[in-house]
């Protein structure tokens, strides 16, 4: 990039006649116009490339020649290897997911009148910083389902389909007729008989965790040919146990507690307690032991550990897609506007359904746009830094590591500039095909 070599290049494309200078400018004037840009580019972009290249072959102090040692570290250093692996995951998934969503959004928004409003909403995250997006998603991914909206939704969905447990931490109190049956279940010490009234008192459920439909517990009445009983919280805050093993007026029934009658290891009958804690079992349960199965007492489901070691990278990719799907959508929508409607209509007239039109006509016609969008996002993802730096908590940052982050760590906190330079040269090598493609395409245009 010295003036001599560029000016002396033998096969410089001929200056197109049509854009010959209108002013007959002297070369000195041209040089003045170009000087600020070329000096800054030379000092801030070109020189660093050369410097990094040279630096990557020297050791960490910069004094000794190190050959390819720094590059070998790319494949032996644990931190860099994790970063490489994660970068591959990023480059494969983030651009494809964002492009696929962009395509779907672009096609579907054409069918609604408020498509522009929708596009505005999805494109908006492009305007904000990755730092702000990072903070936004730290909030979203908060582990506590009472704070993080991701887990709030996830737990909500989970509990809709899987029965949530009602009585975590409930356990028998003193002199209880119940004993632990293993696996978190409780079982009566003695078998029960028809006509008998069974009491199944437990303690330990925090008042605010009692089911909403729990009513004041009622002692059951004996019934012929049946087993009746009550299961309730034998404890009231401020009043203690009252009469131990007896139903006191202030105590609440375990509404919804599941009860099984077990005879010889087999469940012969089962029921669920009413709001006041009473239950009734048929004669079949005669001689069985009553068991309160373990799923009454499971810890409540707490959602996913989004920012834990195993999910952190997919979670951050999710936030990236949130930011960049809008970019893909807008570019693809622009491409879609250029697709001749006649082609789509012709396919429909020929009897193709919407899916076939999409699959066989729209997507092939959009292929060049889709390729440009995907490649652009890939270059972008290669250098991903801010989102990982902000969203991954300290405890899982090693698991979420990417090359740009590792470069920052090696270069600026571990003081290993040789290795950091090797990473930067590696990143540069990865974008060179795109650089070459850009130049080739423009060379044709410049010559025109």
């Amino acid at each position, binding site marked *: 990039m010295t003036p001599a070599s560029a000016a002396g290049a033998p096969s*410089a494309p001929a200056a197109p006649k049509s854009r010959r200078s209108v002013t007959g400018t002297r070369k000195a004037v041209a040089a003045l116009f*170009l000087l600020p840009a070329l000096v800054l*580019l030379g000092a801030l972009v070109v*020189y660093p490339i050369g410097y990094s290249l040279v630096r990557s072959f020297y050791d960490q102090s910069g004094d000794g020649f190190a050959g390819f040692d720094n590059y070998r570290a790319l494949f032996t250093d644990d931190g860099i290897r994790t970063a490489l692996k994660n970068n591959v995951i990023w480059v494969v998934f983030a651009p494809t997911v964002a492009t696929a969503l962009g395509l779907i959004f672009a096609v579907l928004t054409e069918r609604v009148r408020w498509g522009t409003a*929708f596009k505005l*909403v999805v494109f908006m995250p492009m305007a904000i910083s990755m730092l702000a997006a990072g903070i936004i998603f*730290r909030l979203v991914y908060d582990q506590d389902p009472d704070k993080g909206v991701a887990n709030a939704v996830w737990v909500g969905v989970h509990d809709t389909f899987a029965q949530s447990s009602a009585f975590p931490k409930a356990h028998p109190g003193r002199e209880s007729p119940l004993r632990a049956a293993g696996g978190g279940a409780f079982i009566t010490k003695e078998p029960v008989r028809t006509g008998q009234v069974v009491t199944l008192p437990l303690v330990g459920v925090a008042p605010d965790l009692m089911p909403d439909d729990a009513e004041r517990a009622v002692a059951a009445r004996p019934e012929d040919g049946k087993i009746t009983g009550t299961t309730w919280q034998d404890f009231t805050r401020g009043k203690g146990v009252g009469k131990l093993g007896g139903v006191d007026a202030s105590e609440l029934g375990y509404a919804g507690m599941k009860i099984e009658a077990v005879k010889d290891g087999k469940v012969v009958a089962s029921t669920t307690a009413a709001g006041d804690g009473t239950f009734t079992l048929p004669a079949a349960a005669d001689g069985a032991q009553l068991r309160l199965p373990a799923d009454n007492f499971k810890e409540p489901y707490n959602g996913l550990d989004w920012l834990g070691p195993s999910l952190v990278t997919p979670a951050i990719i999710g936030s990236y897609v949130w930011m960049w799907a809008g970019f893909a959508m807008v570019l693809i929508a622009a491409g879609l506007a250029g697709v001749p*409607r006649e082609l789509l209509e012709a396919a429909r007239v020929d009897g193709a359904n919407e899916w076939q039109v999409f699959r066989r006509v729209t997507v092939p016609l959009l292929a060049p746009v889709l390729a440009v969008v995907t490649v652009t996002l890939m270059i972008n993802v290669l250098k991903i830094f801010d989102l990982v730096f902000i969203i991954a908590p300290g405890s899982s940052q090693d698991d979420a590591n990417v090359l740009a982050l590792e470069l920052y760590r090696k270069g600026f906190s571990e003081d290993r500039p040789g290795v950091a330079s090797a990473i930067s040269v590696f990143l540069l090598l990865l*974008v060179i095909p795109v650089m070459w493609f850009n130049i080739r395409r423009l060379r044709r245009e410049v010559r025109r």
Partner: protein
Amino acid sequence: MTADASSLTKAAPEPRAGTAGAGRRSLGSRLAEGVSGGLVRVFLIVVGLFWLVPTIGLLLSSLRTPEDMAASGWWKVFTEPSRLTFGAYEELLKNDDITTSLVNTVLITVPATVLVVVIGSLAGYAFAWMEFPGRDWWFLGVVGLLVVPVQVALIPIAELFGEIGLFGSILGVILFHVGFGLPFAVFLLRNFFAEIPRELLEAARLDGAGELRLFARVVMPLGGPAIASLGIFQFLWVWNDMLVALIFSDSGSQPITVALQTQVRQFGNNIDVLAPGAFISMVIPLAVFFAFQRQFVSGVMAGAVK
């Protein structure tokens, strides 16, 4: 006759949602279309919510007291809207670190944008309309620099700035942003300026305008749309940057992104700083986004290769 034919072919592809063909189609297919149209709407509404909720969450979190934030999720505000407060914002604006860094953000962003536009226009004009040896090769060289990752320059420039005393200064951050903003600026503006009709420039030349006047009075005004796109893109790029400032600024010259980043480590304890801080840092970009949608979109679309 030809007019008739063209209007017909124009009309044919127009019918949306199959209204023209409805007479021929069976009730079943029309029903299926209605259902799928409804599904499309529901799907897009759900997706729109997915995109809106995270930002709304940040906004509402910033309007709650730290005690409320520690106790429950932001969606609880819908049951007790009276508990919303601007207290966190008031506290934040009393925090010198934050206010200084907001000023720094402006002090970095405005010059970095103006310089890129001016220097990029000068070079773009020279590449488009001046004659000098190897012009197109030089230009291709600049285009090649478009995709160079900023990461390549972090260590070398940190050492360079350290030697010449720019490390930790606002000027250093500005210079770095100008350097990496220029390839795109030159590329965009050269292509735009090259489309200016030759006659316009010649007419101005005949009126006796010199090179500088030609540039200032004819080329720059005509380049308005491209300059607007470039300016907005560069402005947002620099405003939103964290990495460059993280390395090249110090505690006195750091912009808002870096000031907030230092708080992230204690995430959870200081959400009352982070949430309003992040929202304040988003206000200007969002205002720019809504005010200049068209230029914003074209700028982002042209410049995303960075």
